[in-house]
């Protein structure tokens, strides 16, 4: 049974039909990256997986539970299995770095502040950060914020990690360091991952499988090697970053 099963999901916002019957499944321990242009519905799809949005039609099943049919308590219990890295890291700017990383532990466990800070320090060292525990998010660089966001995502030993544009807005070296970190975390923790990105370098590096979302539908899935050698003109144009082809710039 797949860890994440998205079946025929449709979602509209007013007159805008964003998802038009998306079907995608992710096995336990697998790393799947959804690629697609801006406005193709990638973020909307990711938000469906963690129950921030619900489909107008279709089903989303995570770890055997259908998101549409569970109550708020059940949804929160399910969310404890998730970690999510947001595009802009989404760190709470009124809390210190260690309070951000240990937020879930503070809310959902009876651990003391001392113990939470120790765990936060350990998770921060896993993402390559030292001596930043007492800093505020505003004092960190973009790359450091992403690392702290990643440390927060793995603080509760998540079984599924969602990455929303993990390398967007970073310089190429920092972006590659984040990619290495994602690969490394997967090896160490064996988590299931879903990433959305339009950075092909990142997609090839972190994925077992890549799915292309275009005009609200998954038009192709395959391993990085299969995607590199695709004959689909839309996917071909996207991965080569060509301005000419069936996809037109908005």
């Amino acid at each position: 049974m797949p860890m994440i099963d998205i079946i025929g999901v449709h979602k509209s916002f007013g007159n805008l039909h964003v998802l038009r019957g998306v079907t995608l499944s992710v096995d336990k321990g697998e790393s799947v990256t959804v690629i697609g242009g801006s406005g193709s519905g990638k973020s909307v799809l990711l938000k469906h997986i963690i129950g921030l949005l619900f489909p107008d039609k279709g089903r989303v099943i995570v770890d055997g539970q259908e998101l549409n049919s569970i109550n708020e308590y059940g949804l929160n219990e399910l969310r404890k299995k998730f970690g999510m890295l947001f595009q802009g890291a989404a760190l709470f700017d009124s809390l210190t770095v260690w309070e951000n990383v240990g937020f879930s532990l503070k809310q959902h466990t009876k651990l003391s502040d001392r113990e939470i800070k120790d765990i936060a320090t350990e998770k921060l060292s896993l993402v390559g950060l030292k001596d930043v525990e007492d800093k505020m998010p505003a004092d960190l660089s973009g790359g450091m914020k992403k690392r702290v966001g990643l440390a927060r995502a793995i603080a509760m030993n998540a079984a599924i990690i969602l990455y929303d544009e993990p390398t967007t807005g970073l310089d190429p070296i920092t972006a590659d360091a984040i990619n290495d970190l994602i690969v490394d975390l997967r090896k160490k923790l064996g988590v299931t991952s879903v990433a959305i990105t339009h950075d092909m370098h990142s997609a090839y590096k972190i994925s077992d499988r890549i799915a292309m979302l275009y005009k609200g539908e998954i038009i192709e899935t395959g391993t990085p090697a299969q995607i590199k050698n695709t004959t689909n003109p839309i996917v071909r144009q996207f991965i080569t970053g060509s301005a000419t082809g069936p996809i037109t710039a908005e």
Partner: protein
Amino acid sequence: MRCFVALVLEFQEFIYNQLETLGRKTSAIVTQIGAVLVFLGQTLRWTFSRPFYLKNLLKQMEQIGFNSVPVVLTTALSTGMVLALQSYTGFKRFGAETLIGTVVSLSMTRELGPVLTGLMVAGRAGAAMAAELGTMRVTEQIDALSTLATNPMKYLVVPRFVASTLMMFFLTTLGMIIGIVGGYFVGVKVLGTNPVTYINNSIDYTEVTDIWYGLIKALVFGAVIGLIGCYKGFHTEGGAEGVGKSTTGAVVISCMLILILDYFLSALLW
């Protein structure tokens, strides 16, 4: 003739367009009112259910209440003093200067205390709430809270709503006292009214119910400030510009509602 028909058709189209715009705007306003009421229902529901974020509540009480003290003190003191001065000018014309104390204490308790405190708190704390929550919304911090299995309504909205309601009660009490003291200072020390008569008239004609009416208004205004500030912030869209719009909207709507509700509450608590 053809020209006349064209003119009539154009006029007809203009009327249709105007009616359509009016209908769309009315529909949008009704939808907004409905959404605010649903938001209020959710807030009340989460106010009385566990877990309670006491630390967040205390922090908000400090930000909304304690930090608003200087602005409320200045406004109340100035209003009490000006009221005494203006009443004296008018009352002197028919020899009723001794009633200044009554006017000041009745106005401050029933009307000016809650309304002016409400307007000041809406401008200061309501704007801050909308801006903070709005920024959290556009930077996905509110979504992040949800993904960390924490209810943002409970964690962010309830503490602000409760703190705003409670602190308006205390700030208004303070405003009433300071306004009356300011009026006394001007009436007795500056204008030379007899202090005993001033105090007696203030006490004799001000009833405990006048104070309670003012404080009931304060509680309602506090709830309005918290509700609108959080609603506007929570539903912010569109980056920095959206945050600006939400902040302005929160202050304007809160102030308008305070003034509108003030009339109805005054009529109800007559």
